């Protein structure tokens, strides 16, 4: 390399944080590891997914955890035609707010679809979990949502 050439170097700055999940988020993540969704029942009877630890109205502990999904409806979405390196999918996909069947709030995740024409507000989707052996109790255990009845 010539002396006149400007140098460059790759650096990585990393903090290996580990967080305590608590009883509610922990149960939700345990559910994902088992391949199912759990929501929290609020004081007004609404089912909150992903669950919050405290009731958004009364600030009391949330009520019973109930199973929801795995199907749901797209509330809102944005198509990503050029995924970035750190995105959950490396093929074009959509970020979407999905209200799971039995839930009253929407969950943000990705939809793996052939193209934006396959999606619209109100499209029915269903969960595609990673294989059981690969699930670790993380949001990424849910690989993506896919259009219900469509090719995944």
């Amino acid at each position: 390399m010539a002396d006149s050439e400007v140098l460059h170097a790759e650096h990585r700055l990393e903090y290996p944080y580990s967080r305590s999940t608590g009883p509610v988020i922990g149960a939700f993540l345990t559910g994902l590891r088992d391949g199912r969704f759990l929501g929290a029942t609020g004081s007004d009877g609404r089912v909150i997914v992903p669950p919050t630890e405290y009731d958004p109205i009364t600030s009391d502990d949330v009520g019973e955890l109930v199973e929801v999904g795995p199907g749901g409806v797209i509330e809102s979405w944005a198509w990503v035609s050029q995924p970035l390196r750190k995105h959950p999918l490396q093929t074009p996909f959509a970020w979407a707010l999905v209200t799971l069947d039995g839930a009253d709030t929407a969950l943000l995740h990705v939809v793996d679809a052939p193209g934006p024409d396959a999606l619209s507000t109100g499209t029915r989707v269903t969960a595609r979990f990673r294989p059981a052996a690969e699930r670790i109790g993380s949001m990424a255990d849910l690989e993506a949502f896919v259009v219900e009845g469509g090719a995944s």
Partner: protein
Amino acid sequence: MADETTDPGPVTTLATPIRLDFDFTPGVAQSKFLRGLERGEFHGQRCGVCGKVYVPSRGSCPTDGVPTTEDVLLGNSGTVTTYCIVNVPFAGQSIEIPYICAQILLDGANLSFMGLLQEIPTDQIRMGMRVEAVWVDEAELTPSLASVRYFRPNGEPDADYDTYKEYL
């Protein structure tokens, strides 16, 4: 659901690493400094207005706000202006404690920089001590400060306080 022998129990913790990958470009002036390290030499740059020599140079004089254009080859020796004896262990520490972290004013420079001082008991370090750079083997030289293994006393008498008092 998993049976009892394989049930890993409820999830109680979540790994959430925060990572920043970046490509660092040191720029023209610092690249010259780093190229010098690759040859076992310290290079600085002089300001054409105030005449001060910066090492490593950022390519401009912070006092006069002008580009530093004259390249200067500095000596391998310098003076300890101030120092710190490190006794506290911390995560990721690579040097055995206690060790000395010193600000070193290279001969010909008007800016000190931080270096590791070795080959001297920690209770004998003093301001004004004359030191020299010890480099890694030639085959291991890289355009990085890792090319400087450490500094050590060079045996010269201590520098007069007046010669480095401006750099404390």
